């Protein structure tokens, strides 16, 4: 039987911790667990687009709650990746309204182009392809989301261009961006 791998301690950067403290200030002192979802978003951005058990343990420590309380939340919400992902995660909407505008064809095109199926990562590690349910972009489908950015009214040519642009880009953390 495999022995469980030894857990490695993870640390948030100062920028991430400042963002965590800002969110925690939004809730009453005895209701700090409310900051759990915002902090999980920060953890995902901080640790390469996914949340490891070690990261979840760290979040539990920050909020002074049991690790299980973090696990049960992280596994419920679809935005959190619990396994390693590529440099960019392409989340293609496939629900009814986008289907009417051609999302089936877009997904097939991306699978062919990336050489991987939905749920997998391309061999070069650049892209993880996911499908998601309705991103409130029904008038501008087919579309996909990469981190906090929407790309809408896509066709094969614009999707190809997007892949090239993303390949050449660097991934910044939200608190490093100038909003």
């Amino acid at each position: 039987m495999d022995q469980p791998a030894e857990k490695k301690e993870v640390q948030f950067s100062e920028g991430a911790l400042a963002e965590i403290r800002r969110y925690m200030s939004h809730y009453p002192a005895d209701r700090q667990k409310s900051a759990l979802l915002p902090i999980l978003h920060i953890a995902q951005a901080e640790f390469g687009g996914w949340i490891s058990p070690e990261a979840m343990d760290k979040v539990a420590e920050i909020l002074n709650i049991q690790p299980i309380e973090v696990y049960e939340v992280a596994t419920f919400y679809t935005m959190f990746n619990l396994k390693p992902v590529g440099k960019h995660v392409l989340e293609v909407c496939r629900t009814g309204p986008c289907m009417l505008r051609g999302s089936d064809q877009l997904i097939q095109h991306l699978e062919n182009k990336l050489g991987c199926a939905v749920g997998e990562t391309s061999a070069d590690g650049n892209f993880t392809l996911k499908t998601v349910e309705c991103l409130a972009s029904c008038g501008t489908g087919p579309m996909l989301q990469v981190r906090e950015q929407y790309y809408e009214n896509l066709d094969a040519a614009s999707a190809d261009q997007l892949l090239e642009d993303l390949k050449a880009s660097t991934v910044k953390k939200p608190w490093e961006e100038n909003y």
Partner: protein
Amino acid sequence: MGRKLLTEHINVEGIETFDVYRKHGGYASVEKALKTMSPEEVVEEVKTSGLRGRGGAGFPTGMKWSFLAKPEGKPRYLVCNADESEPGTFKDRYLMEKLPHLLVEGMITSSYALGCRTSYIYIRGELMYILRILEKAIAEAYANGFLGENILGSGYSLDLHVHPGGGAYICGEETALLESLEGKRGNPRNKPPFPAVWGLYGSPTVVNNVESIATVPWIITNTAAEYAKIGVGRSTGTKLISAGGNINKPGVYEIELGVPVEEFIYSDEYCGGIWKGRDMKAVIAGGSSVPILPKDLILKTAAGEDRLMTYESLSDGGFATGTMLGSGGFFVMDDQTCIVRHTWTLARFYHHESCGQCSPCREGTGWLEKVLHRIEYGHGHMHDIDLLVSVAKQIEGNTICPLGDAAAWPVAAAVRHFREEFEWHVKHPEQATSPGAVFNKNASVLA
């Protein structure tokens, strides 16, 4: 051209900034309410306006406000439901992106009316870029004395925060939203007690949709009497409709309630007709959870009159012939749309989004998706069609929250109105090689 109450200034350059918004009359409702009206008067004004909740259910907003319990020594909360996730609906996203200060203004005026010291905007996690826009608007409101301590010297103080969700449609249900805001899984609560008595952190809470709250400033600034003059009957005011699907001009339109459905679909002012010169097959008028209607029924009521974009006209005759205004998520299907495939995508959505708390929903939505999948891919049997109806019936009304109904209605309505299309799929398994193959009623062949 209809009147625009929410979107009049939406295309003004810089309207997302405090200064430009203020120059165009922004925050007038806060000044008027805090300086000249009591909280009770603001509630009464919203009641008189006839405003109905714009999230989908259409419950009178002022009445909902008046239910709020006011126990001594306990805080009260206003939570804005910005978890817009209903397929077909994208109006709130548009409103928040273009007019963030309108929502902030609405939150301040509404919070004053309800006696809240802290309020939250719960926004779906996928819309993180809009969270940044709202946070910027909130910071500007603080800097200009419209948020924080002693707003405009009135003695009233308010803190406003934006809270991101994590990607779960169920969190649009108000009690699931509150659970999520408390840092838990988004499992809906048993009701009663309703949030007005036991809401966020066990305190009395009002949960309102973005559009409802964004309508409050106009009502307070221009009076409820003026608002109630717009619209038809009990459908007062204007409504944002997000139009999508196979139309020439998808987008968000603010309509005066009462516009004929036919005008909305075919006129250049709104959807501009069906794309690619095709005919219309069906419409889902109020977000994916409301029953689909074929062309003839969406244009005319059971009595043969023109169907109007109002709460009453769209639901006339109940679900057998009517549908619902719902969230205003209006999507149109052309004659090349495979109803079976489309219904399958919606069933897949509801299966994916079921929180799993109630067995009829957890298991039933999975059954619906599986049965629809096998019909679509050529493995269906004739009795599967009745099985769909049977499963839908067993889900409906048997769950804690309305997600079960939302999953059952579209499937039951699709079978009711397009049964021969389902039968055609079962009879032509060879078409399984062409997923989405379209039944052509006239030619009985692939279109």
